[in-house]
Structure formats: structure tokens, C-alpha cells
């Protein structure tokens, strides 16, 4: 705890330079999505630029985060995944939790989670260093990004519109407007989306900050 408080103090009172080193990027909408290379839960190297030709959806996740847990427990995330996969979209679930923090999993555990929850991501990417998360400016779990078949970033933000505030835990998903599943057709048409940037909600991404 002392270490933690010292950290808070350090960051509150000084250290612009330190902050700059781990600054979150903020990739602009309707421009080329930043490329990255990652290892999936089967040890395979995945490069975003190799996926050109198919649209890609990025989902930042942390299975122990109550927000993510609710999306999976009520089969909401899985149904969005299914709609996307059926439309030929590549779905990448990305875990940026640092080792030792909530949501960090071994590759085996990641695969087990996929099976036990009936999820259907194309790949689960393990981003222990948080590099990809910061490249995309992922702040919360869940945090969603949609990239079209030409590699253009079309959406960043929340998965739906019920997240800010505690009503999230009391609102049925069928009452929500899902920004991802409702805009898949425009994504396939490589168009600029009607809603292209929202404020993501949820738990913070558990980056390595010490």
C-alpha cells in the first residue's frame, strides 16, 4: 500500500516526463488503424496489417471486471461476437492486464475462458506489456474498436449506451443501443459510421504502471 500511495504522490505532484513515456495514444477516426504485432493464446504471431481484406473488431477485456463479467454472464458479448463472425469479421479479444493484476491470464486459462463462456473470438491476444492498449488508447474493459477491410479505424468507444453510471447494473441489454452490432453493415460497406466515437465505460485497463 505504501508503494501505491508513493506512486500516487509521485504522479500527482511531478513527473510530466514519466507520464509522457506511458502516454495513451488517441488514434483518429477514419484514418489508418495503427498496426501491431501480437501473440495469440496459441502462441501464434498475429499482425493487424496481415488481416487487411477483412474488417476487424478489437475488444479489450478482463474477465474479472464486473462490467465485462456482466456482458459475458448475460451472453451479450458472445451474441455480438457471433453476429460479427457470421458477417466475416475478424474478432480480436485483447487482454492488456499486466502480470499479477486482475484479468491477467495464462494462454491456457484464456482458451479455457473462451470455451467455458461460449465465446467466439477469432483470436485472444495477450498484451502483457500494455503496448497495444496504449497504442489504441484503450482505457476501459470493455473498450471497442472497429476497423474496416481497408484497415481504416471506423469506431472507438463503448460497446453500448448504458454504461456511464450505476444504471449499467440495472439496465437490461435489450434496452441498450449496441454501437458495435448496430453498425456492422456500415463497417462492411467501408463507410464512415454514424456514431464513430463514444466514451468507453467500465473498469480501467490494468496497465503496468510501476
Amino acid at each position, binding site marked *: 500500500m505504501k508503494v501505491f500511495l508513493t506512486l*500516487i504522490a509521485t504522479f500527482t505532484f511531478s513527473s510530466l516526463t*514519466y*507520464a509522457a513515456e506511458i502516454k495513451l495514444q488517441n488514434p483518429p477516426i477514419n484514418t489508418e488503424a495503427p498496426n501491431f504485432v501480437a501473440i495469440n493464446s496459441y502462441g501464434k504471431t498475429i499482425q493487424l496489417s496481415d488481416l487487411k481484406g477483412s474488417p476487424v473488431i478489437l475488444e479489450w477485456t478482463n474477465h474479472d*471486471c*464486473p462490467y465485462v463479467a456482466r456482458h459475458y454472464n448475460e451472453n451479450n458479448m458472445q451474441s455480438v461476437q457471433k453476429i460479427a463472425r457470421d458477417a466475416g469479421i475478424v474478432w480480436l479479444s485483447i487482454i492488456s492486464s499486466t502480470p499479477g493484476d486482475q484479468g491477467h491470464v495464462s494462454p491456457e486459462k484464456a482458451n479455457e475462458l473462451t470455451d467455458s463462456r461460449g465465446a467466439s473470438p477469432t483470436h485472444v491476444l495477450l498484451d502483457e506489456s500494455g503496448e497495444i492498449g496504449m497504442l489504441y488508447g484503450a482505457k476501459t474493459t470493455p473498450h471497442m474498436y472497429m476497423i474496416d477491410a481497408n484497415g481504416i479505424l471506423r469506431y472507438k468507444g463503448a460497446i453500448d449506451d448504458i454504461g456511464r453510471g450505476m444504471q449499467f447494473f440495472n439496465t437490461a441489454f435489450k434496452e441498450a443501443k449496441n454501437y458495435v452490432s448496430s453498425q456492422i453493415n456500415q463497417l462492411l460497406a467501408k463507410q464512415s459510421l454514424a456514431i464513430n466515437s463514444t466514451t468507453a465505460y467500465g*473498469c*480501467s485497463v490494468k496497465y503496468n504502471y510501476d
Partner: protein
Amino acid sequence: MDRGGNAPPFLLQWFNMIRMKNLFLACSLFLCTLAASNPVETGHARASLITNLQDSQQESFYVGVRLEMQEGWHTYWENPGDSGSPFDAKWNVAEGLIVENVEWPTPITIPYPPLMTFGYEGDVVFPFKVFRAIDSDLSSISVDFDFLICADICIPEKASLTLDLSSATPNALVDAAVQNLPAKIIQTQSIVEGNSLKTKFKFSQPIKEAYLFPRQDNLFSYTPTQQFVSLGDNSYEITVPVLKDEVASFSGILSINGEGFQIEEQLESTASMSLWQAILFALIGGLILNLMPCVFPVISLKVLSFVSMGGDDNSKIRNHALSFVGGVMSTFLSIATALIIIRSTGSMIGWGYQLQSPVVVGILTLIMLGIGLILLTNINFASGLTTFGSSVQSRNDYSGSFFTGVLAVVVASPCTAPFMGAAIGYALLQPSFATLPIFLALGLGFAGPYLLLALKPEWISALPKPGAWMETLKQFFAFPMIATALWLMWVFMVQTSGDALILLLLLGLILGIAIWMIATFKGRWKWLGMLVTLLAAVQIFNNLPENTSGLLADSSAEQWNLAIESDLQAQDQAYLINFTAAWCITCQTNEKTAFARDKVKEYLIDQNITYVKADWTNRNEEIAIGLARYERTGIPLYIFWKPGMPGSKILPAVLTEDLLIKSMQ
């Protein structure tokens, strides 16, 4: 006030628990309880409902939800920052009680680099104001309090709290929480420059730390620290990185040394005008400025002197015209430089600001009076003393032309021509590199006709032939000068007092004698009168009283304040705001030709439009801030709004009664 449905709250809670069984499984491990009691252990906090109700007759009081969070855990402010969530409170109260929305305490930054969240740690009380019908019974008050509590991980927890108001003992923690609420509004002035919002504010004590917590999400990025600099003179500027190019308005809490202040900021988009557009406006505005009432007499004298040069050789005309242009340009340059220097100290300034000083007004009065007397008495001032305007007699004295240019700008300062306000407003709110070109363009516009004359001296033959009529006209122009002096005397009186005006008139008398002496006597001691005038002026101007009561006060108008627009809009009340000052002659003209007319007054009453007046005769920082909201630094400025309009609109700077009424329809 119920949870929304018809089912009793208990059932709904139970339903929620089933629906989110996995979530609340975690909760129940920590003895999470849903029973209505007080206090409640929620898992990582103890929640309780407390009040400051003292006496059973009180019509308003506070209840507070107190959260005592375990060390290392925190909950969130209304804008939680990069992640998290504010709490949700659903009240269940008896009829006759109204619980208002929470009054958020000042948050702290809770950084999880590279993320930043805003919230509270430790022991916090969230105060809710309660209003009570006086005949209602004091009974129990209950709340379902859902909140997200986080350390490294986040857990939604909840407490159903009930407090019996009839038997509750007042808890000092509620008073303390209310006392510490960020209640005061701090005056700020913000602009967006590049990727940053720069917000200026004043604070009378040294600042150790400051942080601006924006209420709206998705406008700013949340950094571990926000750069703030002292601008001197108790002024500070804090920089917040913005996410979007356009920030029209925002609100939030400015935390200074841990103390919170409310910010309500309306920004005009700085991209509303480009530099080139502003320069063009300045050129046109400067040109029109020649025709404004305060400048006209001086300018017409200059024109007369050119007329008298008809038939002279062109190079002389050119040199005189260029001298005049030089005088104009160097004065505008000096004004721009002075404004930039004053602005760098953090003061809010505006066009015509120099006339907010009664000393400047007094000196201008004497200058106008002096010119008037010189014109009437036809004194031929020896070279060496500035021959204000009267270069008719001293054709070879180019310094005379130069100083006429200076004088023209000095007397032009109380005027704002159409187009000019927008251009100067832009100039003064922009970085220095943009200020200079705009002021130079203004000068160029103002001096335009004479510059043209310098280029084409032969065009002077288009003017009437010189003759005896000029002497007559010149003498006649003494009267507009004296009229200007009279107006300045009125300004002086509004700024100071009637007694001070008598002293100024006395100075005028001494000046008259001094000018008579110069005209009548020979030798060095004819200047004695001037010396006496100077000494007397120094003595009098050093001891001027300041009038704060505001003589422009108008019983039909509401007093302006910074919050009046948002207040009136909140009440759906249409309004017309008149930013005016005694020294602003365009404003005074508009008063007479529009605002004071019965037709206008009747229209305002018929349409139920609140008339608000902001009097800027004396220096007033708040009004300067108010003007800056409209990207203006000078007056006149007229603002109109009625329900249904998305935002208030700026009315034309020169008004007639018909134009004023038409622009409000």
C-alpha cells in the same frame, strides 16, 4: 421516488440480485447486506445515512450518505475520468419531502497511469439537500445507494439505508461536508489554442497545486498533472489538453490547494474568424472610424489643411500626408504594444480602456478645450510646441501633421466602428503575433484616405479651392471640439464626482488664460501660464476621487452580472444586454437613438424582455470577462436571447429603434 416499477423495492432488489447473481456472489462473500439498516457494511466500505436536521420545524436541511471506504479503495465523482462510474442514489421518501440531486464534494485525482480517474478516498459524505412542506410529518427517509468501489479492481456495491428523521441526531459531519462544498464560482476566461484549453483565473493566495476537473466527458484528456503558470498580479493560467478542436462550453470544478471552485465557461469558437478575416475587418473598421463622431472634427481639420495645400507642389502634400499616416500608424503600434504588455500581466483589457482612467479623460478634455480655443483665437503657435491640428499656418511643419495623426487616434479611442469590435476582440484574445498585424491593419484603414493622397497628390485638386471660407470653417470647428470637451467632462464627472468636475473646469479656465498669454505676450515668460496649468493639472489629477456608485444606473434596467445570462436562460426569460460606458460615444449615440426611445421601451415590456445594463465606465474586471465570452474586448456590445434560440446573438454595433426591434424579432 420508487425504483420505477410497482413492485416493492425489496422484490426488485431480490430480482436484481438473481439477475446479477455472479456479481453479487462476490458481494455476499464480504457480508454484503441488502437489509434496510444504518449503517451498512457493503464489503469495502461502511455506508450510513446522516443528517444535519436540528429542529422539527426546519423547511430545508441536508441528509448525507457517508461512505467510510477501506484504505486503498475509492469511489467516483460525477465525471469518473477514464474509467469507473458515479454512484446512483434512489430515494424513497414520504410525501411532502423533496430530495435534490447530490451536491458533489470537490474530488481528488486518483491516477492509474496512464489512466486518470476522479473521485474520493477514505471517509466521504455526499450531501443531498432536502426540502420539506411545513405541514408534513417528519418520517423515515430511505435510499438505495449503488456505487462502484475500486482499488486495483472494481466492485459494484450497494447499501439500502434508512434514517428516521423524527429521532435522528444532527451529525456535524454533514455540516462540515456542506461547508466544504465547492459553492463559489470562480471567474475564468478560457481559450482553446492548438490542442490545449488555457483557462485564466485569479487567486489571491499562493497556489501549491491546482487541477481542473471537467464535468463533461469526451472533451478533455485527463493528465496526471495540469500545467499551471503564474501570470503575476494574482493571475494564473492552467492548461488542459483537449480531445476535440471545438469546445463550446464546459463546466467543472477547479481545485486550488484542495479547495474547490465551480467553473461555468462558455467559449466562443476561436476558429470563428481567421486572421485574414480579422485583418480585413480591421481595415474596413479603421476606414469607417474616420466618420465616427469623436474623430470627425480632428479629421476634418486635417482635410482642411490639405485643401489649403491645393496648388502647392505635390511633394509637400505627399510629405504631409505621409507624416500624418506615420503619426496614425505609430500611435496604433504603441497602443498595440501597450495592450500586449498589459495583457502579459494577466489583466483583462479592452479597446477604449484608457478612457476608464479619469486622468486620461481629464487630459483629453483639456486638449480638446485647448484646440477649440486655439482655433477661435487664431493663435499662431511658435514652432516647437505641437501645433495640434492647426497646420494651416505652419505648412512646412511636418511634425504638426504627425501629431495630428497621433491626436486623431487618441480621440478615436472611445469609438468602435462597425467591423472593428470583432477585429479588435479577435486581436486581443489571440497570441501577440496576431495582435500586431490587426492593429496595423486598423491604422492602415484609418489612414487609408491620406495614404491614397500621398500616392496621388494631384487628386487634391478635386477638393474645393482654398479661400477665406476656410478660415471661417476652421473657427467653426472650434465648436465640435468644445462639444467633445463637454462630453468628456460628463464622462469625467461620471467617473469621479461633481466636485472633481469643478476642479477640471477650473483647470480649463487656467488653460484659457495660458493660451491667451501665449497669444498676447512676447518673450519667454508668456509660457508661465502653461507652466501653471501643468502644475495645477498634476496636483488635481493626483487626488481624484473614484465614483463607484455608477451614475449611468438606469431604473428600467437590471444590473448585469457574470451569471445573469445562464440564470435568465434557465428561467426561459428573454433578455437584452447592453454593455455601455459614458466614454463610449457610439454607445451613447445608440442610447439616444434606440434604447431610450418609447417604442423600444414598450416593445421590451410587451415582449417581456428583461433589459440588462453593464456599465463599463470605470474599470471592471468582471465586465471585461463578460465581453471576452463574446470574443470582444470593447464596447458597444448588445446581446439578445429569447427562448427557442440555441444561443444568444450579438446585435449590430450601430442601432436605430427600428433596427433594434427588428433584430429582436
